[in-house]
C-alpha cells in the first residue's frame, strides 16, 4: 500500500522557467540543498554503498553464498556469543564466518551481500515500471481532463479496490504452474522463461509494478491538473505547440520532482513486499538469497540462533532508513516553499 505525501506546487516566473537564486538551474539548486541535509546525505551514502556492495558482491563477500558445508551449520563466531549470551550452551564456534553460517553451513554474510542484489533490483525496477506506466497514464488523464479523466480514474479506483497481494499470489500461481502446461511459443511461455532466467524475480517485479502504478497515476494526474492551468502552458498553446510537445517538454519536466520523491519514499514498501512474498514462498528460487528468504529462514530459528534473522532484518531496516531519509531529503530539496526566496 503506497501513500501519497501531498503535492507541491512549483512557482514560475514569466518565460516559464522556475525562479532560482543566483541563476542556478533547478537541479543544481536542489542538489545543493540536498547536500546540506545531513540525514539525506547519510541516507544517500548508504544507498550508494549498498549499490557498490551489490555490484561488487564477489569481491566484498569472499565466501560463496551457495556452498553448503554441512559440518559448519549454525556455527557462529565469538563476538556473536557476547551479543547473544543465551546461545552459549549449545552454539558451536567458528571464526571463519563473519556473521556465522546458516542451517546448511552457508556463509550468512555473503548471503546478505548477495541478497542486496535482489532487494536493490526490486528498489530500482519496481519504481521504473511503476513510473513508466503511472506517469504516462496519469499525464494523459490529467491533460485531457473531462470525460477521459473520469473514466480513467474510475478504472484506477477499481483496481485499487483489488487487494494487490492476492493479485500477485494469483499471478504467480498462474504463471509458475503453467510451465508444464503452457504451449511453447505463446506469450505466457515466454514470460515463464524470462522468469526462470531471472531466477524467479520477474513476476515479483511485474506484480509490484502492476499494483503500484495506480498511486503514481493518481499523483501524476493531480500534478498535471495543477500545472495545466498555468499561463505558460496557455502561452505554449497559443504559439501552436502540439499537445504532445506541451506534455513532454513543458509539463513533465516541471512535475518530475515530487513524482521522483514520492516514488523514492515508496521503495521501502517494495522491498518489504518482496520480503513478504519470499516469506510465504512466492519469491526467488533457492539457493538465490534475498533478504526476504533470509528473514523467513531465520525466523524459524529466532529463539535458538537469533543472529540468522536479526542480521538480515538489520540490513533491511538500514536500507529502508536510507531510502527514507534520502527521499525526505529529495522532497525537501525540491520543494520551493522551503527556499524562502518567494
Amino acid at each position, binding site marked *: 500500500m503506497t501513500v501519497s505525501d501531498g503535492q507541491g506546487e512549483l512557482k514560475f516566473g514569466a518565460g516559464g522557467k522556475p525562479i532560482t537564486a543566483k541563476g542556478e538551474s533547478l537541479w543544481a539548486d536542489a542538489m545543493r540543498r540536498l547536500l546540506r541535509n545531513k540525514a539525506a546525505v547519510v541516507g544517500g551514502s548508504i544507498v550508494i554503498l549498498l549499490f557498490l556492495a551489490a555490484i561488487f558482491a564477489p569481491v566484498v563477500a569472499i565466501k560463496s553464498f551457495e556452498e553448503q558445508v*554441512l559440518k559448519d551449520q549454525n556455527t557462529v563466531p565469538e563476538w556473536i556469543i557476547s551479543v547473544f549470551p543465551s546461545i552459549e550452551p*549449545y552454539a558451536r564456534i567458528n571464526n571463519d564466518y563473519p556473521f556465522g553460517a546458516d542451517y546448511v553451513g552457508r556463509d550468512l554474510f555473503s548471503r546478505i551481500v548477495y541478497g542486496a542484489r535482489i532487494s536493490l533490483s526490486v528498489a530500482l525496477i519496481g519504481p521504473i515500471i511503476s513510473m513508466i506506466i503511472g506517469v504516462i497514464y496519469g499525464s494523459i488523464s490529467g491533460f485531457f481532463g473531462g470525460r477521459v479523466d473520469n473514466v480513467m480514474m474510475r478504472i484506477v479506483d477499481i483496481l485499487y479496490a483489488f487487494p494487490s497481494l492476492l493479485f500477485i499470489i494469483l499471478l504467480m500461481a498462474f504463471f*509458475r*504452474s503453467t510451465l*508444464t502446461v503452457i504451449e511453447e511459443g505463446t506469450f505466457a511461455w515466454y514470460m515463464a522463461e524470462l522468469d526462470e532466467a531471472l531466477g524467479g524475480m520477474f513476476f515479483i517485479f511485474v506484480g509490484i509494478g502492476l499494483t503500484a502504478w495506480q498511486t503514481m497515476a493518481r499523483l501524476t494526474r493531480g500534478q498535471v491538473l495543477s500545472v495545466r492551468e498555468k499561463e505558460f502552458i496557455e502561452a505554449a498553446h497559443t504559439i501552436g505547440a502540439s499537445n504532445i510537445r506541451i506534455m513532454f517538454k513543458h509539463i513533465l519536466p516541471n512535475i518530475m520532482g515530487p513524482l521522483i520523491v514520492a516514488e523514492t519514499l515508496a521503495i521501502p514498501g517494495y522491498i518489504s513486499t518482496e520480503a513478504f512474498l519470499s516469506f510465504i514462498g512466492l519469491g526467488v*528460487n533457492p539457493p538465490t538469497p534475498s533478504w526476504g528468504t533470509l528473514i523467513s529462514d531465520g525466523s*524459524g*530459528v529466532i*529463539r*535458538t540462533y537469533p543472529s540468522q534473522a536479526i542480521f538480515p532484518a538489520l540490513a533491511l531496516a538500514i536500507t529502508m532508513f536510507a531510502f527514507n531519509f534520502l527521499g525526505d531529503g529529495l522532497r525537501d530539496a525540491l520543494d520551493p516553499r522551503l527556499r524562502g526566496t518567494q
Partner: protein
Amino acid sequence: MRKLFVTLSLLIALSMVFAACAPQPAAEPETITVVETQIVEVEKVVEVEVEPEAPVGPKIARLGLLGPGDIPTLDPALASDTSSVQIIMETHPGLIRQHEETNAIDPGMAESWDVVNNDDGTATYTFNLRQDVPWVRYDGFEVVQVTDEEGNVRMVNANDFEYGIKRMLDPATASDYAYVSVFALAGSGPFNAGEVETADDVMVKAVDDFTLEITFNDAAVYNIAIAGMWIHSATPQWIIEERGDRWTEPGFHQGYGPYAVKEWVHDSYIVLTENPFWPGTDSIPKPKIQEVYLPFLDAIPAFAEYEAGNLDLAAVPLDDLDRVKADPVLSEELNINPVQCTYYYGFNTLKEHVSDVRVRRALSYAVDRQSLIDNVTKGGQEPAQWFSRPGLFGAPTAEKYPDLGIGYDPEAATAELQSYLDENGLTVADLDLTLMFNTSSGHQKIAEAIQQMWKDVLGVDVKLSNQEWKVYLVTIQEDAPQIWRLGWCSDYAHANNFIKEVFGSGGHEASATNIESEEMDAILAQAAMESDPDKAMELYAQAEQIMIYDIAEIIPIYFYTGVGVTKPYVDRTFGVGGQQYLEKWDITK
C-alpha cells in the same frame, strides 16, 4: 478428631490414675502408713495421622497435538487428515482397535469376530458387537445419553455401523477415503461409482442388532485392519438426517467413545470431556483425564506456550532442537518416537536421463541419508533404504534385512553413472536434471542438502524448482518432472498400504513414475494373503528389492519420527500411526 483423642487419653490416664488411687484394703495395724495420692496430670501428645484428602477437581490435559488451522471435519465418513482422525478415534472408535505401539489387533466395538473364507475367494467376517455402549452427547452442561422419541436410550448397534459404512460409500457423501473401502469391501465399487442406485449389493449386513457381517473381496490379511478404520465407524442416522452436514457442530454432535466433544471454537481450539457412559474395555479403557484441551497452533507458537507452562505437550520445531538438547530441563522432557510415514523422491521414468535405471540408482546411492538426518532434519529420523515403514505388518526391518534396497554408497553411485555416461558418450555436464518439491522451507532445506550431495559425489548439477501445493499435485499426476518429492503415511498398519497401494499397478503414484513390474505385483498379491509375519516380511522384502533396486522407482530417504516434549507429570503412550490414545493417559500432578 484431635480433641476427641485428647479427651479420651486424658480420661484413660485419669482412670488409670483413679485405678491406681483405688482405696487400699485395710492394712495391719502395726504401722499406719499414710498413702498420699498425687494426681499427676499427664498430657499425652498423641500424633494423629490425618489421611490426606484425595485431590478434588477434574484432571485437565492441555496438549499441543493438533496443527494450525481448523479441523476440517469430525464426520467419520469424511475425515482424511490426522487431526480429524485423532478426535474421531476418541469419539467414534471402530470395530477393532490397533494397539498404538505394536499395531496388534485388539477388540474395539466388536468383542470378537469369526472369519470364513468362501469358495469364491471372498472372506466373510462376522463381528459380535458390544451391547453396553450408548450414544451420548454434550448438552451444554454435562454428557448425557441420547434418547429416541419414546425416551429409550439409544445403544450403539450393528445397524448404526451398517448405516455408517453405506453412507460413507454413497457417492452423494463424496468421501475422500472411500477408495480404501471400495478396494476391499465386496460389492462396494459399483455403488460408490454411481453405477447402481442403491447400496443393496454392498456386502455389509446387520444380521441382528449386535451382529455385523462384512464380506471382503479377498482373503487378505489386512482386511481386519481396514475394517477398523475410522471410515467404518457407526454414525448416528437420526441426527444426520435431521441436521445434514451440520451434525458435527457442537450442540448436535453425537458420539459413543471414551471422550465426547464439549466445545469446538473454530480456528481456535477443541475441548474433549470424559464420557462417563463409556464402559471401558481392555483395549479402550475408561479415561483417567477428565478434560482435554487441544488448541490449533503452529509449531512455533505451540512450543512457546509449552515453555511458558501453558501446554503439557508440544512438538519441538526442528530449528529449536539444538537448544532443547542442550537445555537441562527440556532435554529430559524430549521424546523421539517413530511415526508411520516415509519421505521419498520419485522418478518420472519417461523423462530424459532418468529413463535409464543406472541414473536412478546412481542418484539413489549418492544420498547420504544419515548425514541428512544428523545435520538437516535432526529429528532422530531413521534412514530409509526401502519404502514400507518398519513397524507395519510385513514391512522389512533393519535388524532382519540390513542390506535391503539402496543405501549410501558413493562408489556404487559413480560406477552406475559412469556406465550410463560411457555408453551414451555423455559427460556429467550434459545431464540436465530438475528436482521439484512443494513450496515449504522444510522440503527446501532437504532438497538443498541433497542437491549438494549429488554435486559432491557425482558432480551433477541438479536444478531445484518448487510449486505451490495444489498446482504441484496436478503437475505430479499429469506431467511429473524428472525427480519429485512426496511423503506417504499409513492409513492402516500393513505394508500393503504402502508399497502395493502407492506403487503397485494402478497405485496412487503409478502415473507419476510410469513404471511397473509384473513380478513385483505377483509377489504383492501373494503377500496380501500371508498371515505369518516372518513369511510376509520375506515376501515384502523381495518386493521392495525389486522396487528400490531392480527398477529403482524411487529414492527412499527417511522414515518419519515425531519429536516432541512432554511434561514429566504426563503419563503417556506413544502412538506410531499418527494417533494418540488419550484414554490411556494420566496426569500425576
